[in-house]
């Protein structure tokens, strides 16, 4: 707008200037013409007067009749006349009033004619009359005077006009100047008002957006710089809003996850408390029974204990399932791939489960096409999956049919497993939530059918880990079908395959004795070894150190430098014990232990964990037998090995003594020396223990009064005799303080040896049991 105004002003000024200049120039030209005309007329007057004088002189001369004019003189006169005519003609452009000029010219023409005749007729004396010439001259002069005065008038008029024009132009200029000032002021005012308004709007918008109203859009009123700024600001607030929305979304997700966790925890608490209630309640009741009535109703007690047992087992199942779920959720559940025949596993499971199926009067069958390829997947998880589905099917079906249908889709390279039952089925709403944790069809189902409500949730997540899919279809009252689809080949990036042993060796530091890796090491000694111990550790130095310790302790050592070959060796070599390092590069920390503990081939082998961290509890939960913290102390390792290794058991020791610190010390000592200990605090208990398991040695004493000791010794003698066994266990009487000579003598008759045992003197026992 301001630009338009300025341009308009400029144009106006220019036009005014052009017009006034033109006008002024015109006036000025006219004035100049008038002045020039005046000058020319003065010259003409001069010339006319000169000519008239000459004519008068010549006339006077003629009257005196003295002289004639020469040709030349006549010609000069005529030339002068011609010049005069030319001068008159030249006057024409400057003429202001044509009529006076025309009159002048006409007058002059007559005078010219007479003058010409005068010259031409001079010598012949035929000149016009002097009076006539004079009269014409006077007339012409008169006309010239008129012309001049008209010209002067015209010049004056022009001057007046010029002055008028100048004044007019000045006025216009002044007007434009004033107008420009007013316009400038107006424009400035408008501009300031407009800018203020826009800035205020912008300011308001900033405040609103800053105050959190991110949906507010500042109105864009123009396409100038402020408009651009507003647009940019609006874009910024849009971006901010989007970012805020994203943050909000993430927060909601996190909140949701948090709520799920809290829910899960609440459910967990509920699920754990229910069986605990039975365990604690029944236990307390049995104790009450015993305390208050001093005897137990045996039948009732056994039934109560069975309830405690089943609640305990339920609790264990729950904890295992929750651990599995937690492992899956934290991403620590690893898939351990291998090639296996899934039909073999299903056949085996169908056989195992058929007994359970029969209980509900169900038939259980496997239908499979014969082109099912082997899977490269996690066989343990696969087994767990199918087992879970089968036991579910058995649980919810009575007098029905359970079928496992296996087919192969060659095009998609997928094996499809259907587990179908003709059981109670589910409603669509139950079906929708069936894979959620802690959801069973309804809460009464769990009461009737048991189960933790976690199994299917775990199954579903297992299948996803195994790169497969799991679906379910069901109709209430008709039955349920679970469908699992597994690929025959896992994509490489999902597998957690172990690094082959050869590569492993190349990657690791040069082993101290690389040739012996993964092979059974025959130790130098030819003596009979206490047992074979497999050391699985990726650190060659640690491995060699452990092997040396083992050799010194009298064990045969086998070694593996990675988990996979360790598991293979466990299968093929069947060691008596496995020392497993938790930090293996080729496998998740706990997977090797799980694999070893889940495989029927290696399940029975005790696994002793070694780790830098104290992870006893999780280790024990997963089935470890013992835990050694790294760096491994040789003595501690030896003690643990003796305790763990069944081949190294020296035998069973029966210790008859009341509870005391000394008894605990003796027990520790015996355990450390690899004795399996049975405890008895009374004669009756001792008999019971002997009936349970015949001991290899018997120890008694430590707080039992002398008379009682004799009594027990008598009893033991007759008990051992009644066994009619060749192996008579040695009987040691243990005392904290030296016995009196009479007592010693009496006891020597029935006991094999009397040992003095207290915390200062344990040597005798060590020597005895070696």
């Amino acid at each position, binding site marked *: 707008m301001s630009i338009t105004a300025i341009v308009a002003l400029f144009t106006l000024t220019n036009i005014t200037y052009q017009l006034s200049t033109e006008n002024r120039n015109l006036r000025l030209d006219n004035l100049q013409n008038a002045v020039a005309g005046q000058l020319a007329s003065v010259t003409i007057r001069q010339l006319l007067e000169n000519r008239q004088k000459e004519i008068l002189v010549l006339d006077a001369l003629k009257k005196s009749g003295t002289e004639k004019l020469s040709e030349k003189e006549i010609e000069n006169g005529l030339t002068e006349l011609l010049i005069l005519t030319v001068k008159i003609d030249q006057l024409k452009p400057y003429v202001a009033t044509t009529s006076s000029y025309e009159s002048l010219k006409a007058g002059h023409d007559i005078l010219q004619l007479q003058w010409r005749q005068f010259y031409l007729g001079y010598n012949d004396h035929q000149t016009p009359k002097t009076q006539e010439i004079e009269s014409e001259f006077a007339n012409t002069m008169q006309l010239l005077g008129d012309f001049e005065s008209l010209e002067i008038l015209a010049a004056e008029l022009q001057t007046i006009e010029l002055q008028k024009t100048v004044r007019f132009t000045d006025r216009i200029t002044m007007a434009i100047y004033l107008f420009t000032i007013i316009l400038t002021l107006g424009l400035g005012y408008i501009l300031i008002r407009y800018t203020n308004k826009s800035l205020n709007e912008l300011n308001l918008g900033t405040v609103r957006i800053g105050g959190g109203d991110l949906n507010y859009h500042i109105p864009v009123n123009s396409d100038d710089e402020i408009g651009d700024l507003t647009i940019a600001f609006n874009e910024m607030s849009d971006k901010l809003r989007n970012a805020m929305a994203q943050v909000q979304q993430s927060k909601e997700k996190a909140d949701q996850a948090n709520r799920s966790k*809290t829910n899960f*925890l*609440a459910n967990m*608490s*509920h*699920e754990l*408390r*229910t069986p*605990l*209630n*039975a*365990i*604690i*309640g*029944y236990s*307390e*009741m049995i104790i*009450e029974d015993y305390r208050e009535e001093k005897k137990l109703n045996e039948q009732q007690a056994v039934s109560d204990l069975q*309830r405690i047992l089943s*609640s305990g087992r339920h609790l264990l199942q729950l904890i295992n399932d929750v651990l599995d779920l937690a492992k899956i959720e934290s991403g620590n559940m690893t898939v351990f791939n291998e090639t296996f025949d899934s039909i073999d596993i299903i056949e085996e499971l169908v056989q195992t489960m058929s007994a359970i199926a029969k209980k509900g009067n169900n038939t259980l069958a496997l239908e499979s096409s014969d082109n099912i390829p082997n899977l490269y997947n996690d066989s343990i998880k696969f087994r767990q999956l199918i087992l879970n589905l089968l036991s579910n099917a058995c649980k919810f079906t009575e007098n029905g049919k359970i079928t496992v249908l296996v087919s192969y889709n060659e095009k998609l390279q997928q094996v499809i497993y259907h587990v179908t039952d003709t059981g109670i089925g589910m409603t669509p709403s139950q079906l929708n939530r069936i894979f959620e944790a802690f959801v069973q069809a*309804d*809460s*009464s189902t769990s*009461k009737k059918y048991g189960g933790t409500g976690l199994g299917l949730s775990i199954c579903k997540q297992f299948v996803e880990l195994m790169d497969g899919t799991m679906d379910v279809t069901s109709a209430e009252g008709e039955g349920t079908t679970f469908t699992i689809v597994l690929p025959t080949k896992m994509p490489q990036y999902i597998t957690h395959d172990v690094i082959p042993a050869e590569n492993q060796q190349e990657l690791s530091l040069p082993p101290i004795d690389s040739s012996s890796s993964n092979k059974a090491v025959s130790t130098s000694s030819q003596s009979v070894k206490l047992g074979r111990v497999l050391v699985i550790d990726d650190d060659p130095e640690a491995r060699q150190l452990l092997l040396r310790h083992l050799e010194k302790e009298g064990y045969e050592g086998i070694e593996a430098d990675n988990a996979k070959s360790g598991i293979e060796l466990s299968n093929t070599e069947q060691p008596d014990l496995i020392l497993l390092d938790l930090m293996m590069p080729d496998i998740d920390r706990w997977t090797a232990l799980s694999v070893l503990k889940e495989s029927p081939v290696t399940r029975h082998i005790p696994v002793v964990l070694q780790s830098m961290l104290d992870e006893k509890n999780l280790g024990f939960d997963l089935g470890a037998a013992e835990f050694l913290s790294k760096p491994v102390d040789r003595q501690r390792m030896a003690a643990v090995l003796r305790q763990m290794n069944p081949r190294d058991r020296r035998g069973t020791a029966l210790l008859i003594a009341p509870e005391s610190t000394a008894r605990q010390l003796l027990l520790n000592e015996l355990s450390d020396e690899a004795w399996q200990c049975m405890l008895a605090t009374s004669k009756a208990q001792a008999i019971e223990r002997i009936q349970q398991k015949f001991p290899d040695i018997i120890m008694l004493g430590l707080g039992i009064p002398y008379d009682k000791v004799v009594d027990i010794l008598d009893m033991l003698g007759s008990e051992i005799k009644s066994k009619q066994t060749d192996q008579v266990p040695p009987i040691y009487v243990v005392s904290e303080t030296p016995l009196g000579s009479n007592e010693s003598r009496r006891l020597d008759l029935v006991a094999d040896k009397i040992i003095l045992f207290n915390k200062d003197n344990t040597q005798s026992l060590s020597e005895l049991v070696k």
Partner: protein
Amino acid sequence: MTKILLVEDNEMNRDMLTRRLERKGFSIETASDGEEALQMIAKSIPDLVLMDMNLPIRNGWSTCRELRAHQTTQSLPVIALTAHAMAGDEQKALDSGCNDYATKPIDFPLLLAKINKLLATSSH
């Protein structure tokens, strides 16, 4: 003899509490869901109700509110039993009209104390 109605759907817990309370000299009747409990109370009002909250058919909270809505059972002592031990669960039980609250696993002496206290106040 003091009559207690035990409403509990878990068979083991029902059996266990029944036997333990009977030993303490109470006469115990049992119901396994909220509806059954209401029917039994309609026939004969017990001295006290021990009620699990997580019941099938009609849950404990709803059953308790139903009891409070009727004049005959308005002040019937009710102790909630529940395995829900999260914060707020106690309040939820009390809000529905229960007089007291016991968390599973049940601390039996504490439960007995609560029962006796409630019986003492309600008999006055």
